């Protein structure tokens, strides 16, 4: 029974990890841009959430809405003002640029907010629980999983059903040819980066509600995001979701067996998958199930 509870909590945590990976994976899938600053933007979003949460009506968890809007605008500005200037066949300038942004952002946060550990207060919901099949689970982690699932599904539907979603998919396939159809790929890239940042910001705020964060948490968040994206299979949508699940479950089961292990076993699983299937879960799925 205790294992069932651990696995259920692993799934809850995994949903959030998947959401952390989604922003990075989406930006990479559309633009082939690796935004190294994503982890620090996630922390910055948590700070914005920390200060906005007391002002949000109904329930503090709704703070994800204004934070997502702010992050969307920041993403557009980041792409238009900085990343669009270094686009090209060589990816090193993008990585250096976003790495620089990450350092500036992190130190600005230390200077502005101090290095203390913080957490977003969600009031009584943090301690509420419910019974399912005889096991006791937390309401907040379950709500966070539902939000993550809804965001994955909403993004998937929007990409496949809307006009702009179609242009984003076309741009991801061939950003040069899409211009011949009258599409400015720079504009599409800016919107895609806005969406990636909004998704990451939601993940950052939810993570700050479940646990704590400091201005230095960005590197850990980025590592999780990278592992989710690579385990899932670069650019694979639902692969990322299950990648997050796998990391979350592994981490909690391992902590039960070896309380001092931290994220180590998650990293070990990551390496095993990378060796067995360099294309991640999506690659293994295509090979084994679809036999391609």
């Amino acid at each position, binding site marked *: 029974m205790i294992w069932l509870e651990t696995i259920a909590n692993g799934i809850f945590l995994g949903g959030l990890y998947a959401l952390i990976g989604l922003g990075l994976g989406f930006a990479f899938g559309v633009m082939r841009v690796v935004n190294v600053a994503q982890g620090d933007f996630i922390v910055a979003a948590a700070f914005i959430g920390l200060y906005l949460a007391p002002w949000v009506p109904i329930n503090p968890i709704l703070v994800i809405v204004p934070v997502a809007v702010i992050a969307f605008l920041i993403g557009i500005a980041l792409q238009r003002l900085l990343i669009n200037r270094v686009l090209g066949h060589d990816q090193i300038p993008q990585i250096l640029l976003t790495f620089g942004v990450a350092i500036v952002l992190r130190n600005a946060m230390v200077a502005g907010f101090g290095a203390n550990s913080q957490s977003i207060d969600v009031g009584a919901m943090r301690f509420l629980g419910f019974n399912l099949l005889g096991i006791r689970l937390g309401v907040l982690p379950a709500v966070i999983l539902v939000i993550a699932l809804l965001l994955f599904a909403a993004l998937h539907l929007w990409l496949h059903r809307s006009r702009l979603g179609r242009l984003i998919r076309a741009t991801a396939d061939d950003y040069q040819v899409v211009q011949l*159809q*009258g599409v400015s790929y720079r504009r599409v890239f800016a919107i895609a980066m806005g969406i990636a940042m909004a998704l990451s910001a939601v993940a950052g705020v939810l993570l700050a509600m479940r646990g704590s964060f400091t201005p230095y948490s960005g590197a850990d968040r980025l590592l999780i995001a990278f592992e989710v994206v690579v385990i899932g299979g670069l650019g694979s949508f639902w692969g990322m979701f299950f990648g997050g699940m796998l990391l979350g479950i592994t981490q909690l089961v391992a902590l039960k067996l070896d309380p001092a292990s931290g994220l180590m076993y998650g990293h070990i699983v990551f390496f095993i998958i990378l060796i067995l299937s360099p294309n991640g879960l999506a690659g293994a799925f295509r090979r084994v199930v679809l036999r391609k």
Partner: protein
Amino acid sequence: MSLLSVENLDVFYGDFRAVRGAHLELAAGQTIAIIGANGAGKSTLLNAIVGLSGRKSGSIRFDGRDIGREPTDRIARAGITMVPEGRRLFGSLTVEDNLLVGLAAERPGPWTLEAVYALFPRLGELSKMTAGSLSGGQQQMVSIGRALMTNPRVLLCDEISLGLAPKIIGDIYRCFETITASGVSVVLIEQNVVQACAAADYVYCMLEGHMSLEGRPEDLSQAQITAAYFGTGEALP
């Protein structure tokens, strides 16, 4: 006055001058063909017109306006688009989604989804298929249809017969009668000289980056074309 006019165009890849002093005139409603060997600069010339090439100098005027410095998406919105070499479909999108991307140019006109399906009935049956899974000929139809969906005034076609079976090439070229009848002016790049001369009102031959010969197909002799194509001078029998 011509609709599209290129004068004294140079295009560079790094230090290499791939197009040297090329010129071209396209009148409204006309179909012209550019022939020439591999590496003669044909594709580079078309890419330069739509703004996809590197550094260039010279004049490119469309409808009296200089478009030499415009980005590709603005040129497409103004009414020049291209069927790129190798088709370059959006491989993960369905046939229908590929065609609908053309709506982004926001140019209303005769070419709608229904009109494209009427031109290529096979595409209507395949509309929900992923573009990457189609045969070469079907992909070429999607690529042409996608370009038409922008309702261009000028359609540039880069080697649409490349790698296709002769029967399919014939089918595709027959569709150009409908396309030109709708008012679209066409520039074809073609390696097959016979095909080019049959389809075009006027032919340019390119050699080493410049125009080595031009004229109406009926005015050009086989020997003239051969000499201009291969650069063998007038010495041939």
